[in-house]
């Protein structure tokens, strides 16, 4: 039984280490921010999860696996959120994801909107984001609304383009 646990945990730890390594490699090698973030998120979720589960198996019936599980839960909540916030901040500050045009050449810039099937995800996201902003501003009670929605839209130049 012990040897089985040991084997399982070693396999998990090695796989987790591999994920971390691949993530680090990806951060070095990927061409631009969003793909790099994709690589980094591999470390955050896949690598960390596998390593933590591997360590939990090593812990045995003590308080240690429970603590590791708490860390696991914490990481699973926070690191995707951090990735989201980072990507969002990058998009708002005007870092464009690279896109492919008809000739198959990659370039950084606005995704092509004209042809339907090629419509990229980010422009759709932008539109929904804009909607939420408008909805939130409209729903706000009049008495407390010291913020001005018009002013806010002006502070987000990247969003207005879509």
């Amino acid at each position, binding site marked *: 039984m012990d040897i089985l646990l040991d084997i399982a945990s070693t396999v998990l730890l090695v796989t987790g280490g591999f994920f971390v390594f691949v993530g680090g490699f990806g951060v070095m090698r990927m061409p631009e921010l969003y793909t790099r973030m994709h690589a980094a998120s591999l470390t955050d979720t896949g690598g960390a999860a596998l390593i933590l589960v591997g360590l939990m198996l090593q812990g045995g019936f003590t308080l240690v696996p429970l603590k590791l599980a708490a860390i696991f839960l*914490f990481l699973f*909540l*926070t690191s995707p*959120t951090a990735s*989201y*916030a980072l990507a*969002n901040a990058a998009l*708002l500050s005007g870092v464009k994801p690279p896109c492919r045009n008809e000739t198959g050449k990659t370039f950084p810039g606005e995704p092509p909107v004209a042809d339907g099937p090629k419509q990229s995800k980010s422009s759709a996201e932008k539109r929904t*984001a804009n909607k*939420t*902003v408008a909805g*939130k501003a409209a729903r706000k009670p009049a008495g407390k609304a*010291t*913020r001005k929605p018009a002013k*806010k839209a002006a*502070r*987000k130049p990247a969003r207005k383009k879509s």
Partner: protein
Amino acid sequence: MMTIVFSLFLLTMLVIVAVAILRTDNLFTAVMLSGIFSLIMAANFFVLDAADVALTEAVIGAGISTVLFLGALALTAEHDHSPPVGSWVPLVTSSALGGVIIFATLQAPRLGDPNAIVHKHVAPWYLENTPLLIDVPNVVTAVLASFRGYDTLGEVFVVFTACIGVMSLLGRVRPRGELIEEGEFDKRTDNLRHHLIPRVVGKMLVPFIVLFGLYVQFHGDFGPGGGFQAGALVAAGIILYSLVEGGARGRELVPEWFSGMLVALGAFTYAAVGVACMVMGGRFLDYSVLSHDPVHGQHLGILLIEAGVGMTVAGVMITIFHAFSRRGIR
């Protein structure tokens, strides 16, 4: 061996990050890098078995001071004006100072040397007498709260004074019942309110951060932790709430008069315990007289003064954050 490799790695990272901080002229980048610096430093403290210090450094250095720096950045420009290049005075000054420090380290004992002066002086006495006199497993807490209670009282009043200094620079604490408005930093971080994911996740984490803070507060006798770390953790939870919900909502949750009162109340609690000891026939901050049994009295005294420390630290952090976040209201 493993420790040495790990320390070497961490110290190398520290040097790299420090050079990066110096070389960047974007202050935002510098703030983020200084957060990373603190986190590496915390890991370094942990490698050196100083878990209490590591916890403090992680919470205050990497967490709260980053937020406070960002609050300051929201009020100023994002780019540094490049200092004049070519002056030899800074070079000479820093090389001379660096030389003195390196010369001083030559005299220092080696890492982990059992014959070092610190291990020969009062440390053995503390280790020997803590189980007899105070009977708490964490010797650090015993030294900090009881043997060296005067020093910690001084530290609490330093924090208290620092808070008064910052508040006198940034503006007064708003009294109860005054209108809650938004400052410049609130407007900058206002974007966060409209992002559902950080908002939901952030709000979900706040109770657990506060709970962990309370655990660190009351478990300080047994494990790493105590009032300083706990106060900073609780404040971090409330600052997180203010960041995801907007500063105005944060000031509704913990009003400024309340956090200001907490600062004074904590320092008062600490000093009052000292006076209570005198009233009950002991010396100032000699907790043994607080209860029928000296050891039990020590436990009670440590619990009370740690609560005072926690209140002051949490109050100071929240007050300073609020002061930054509502700055710009006229």
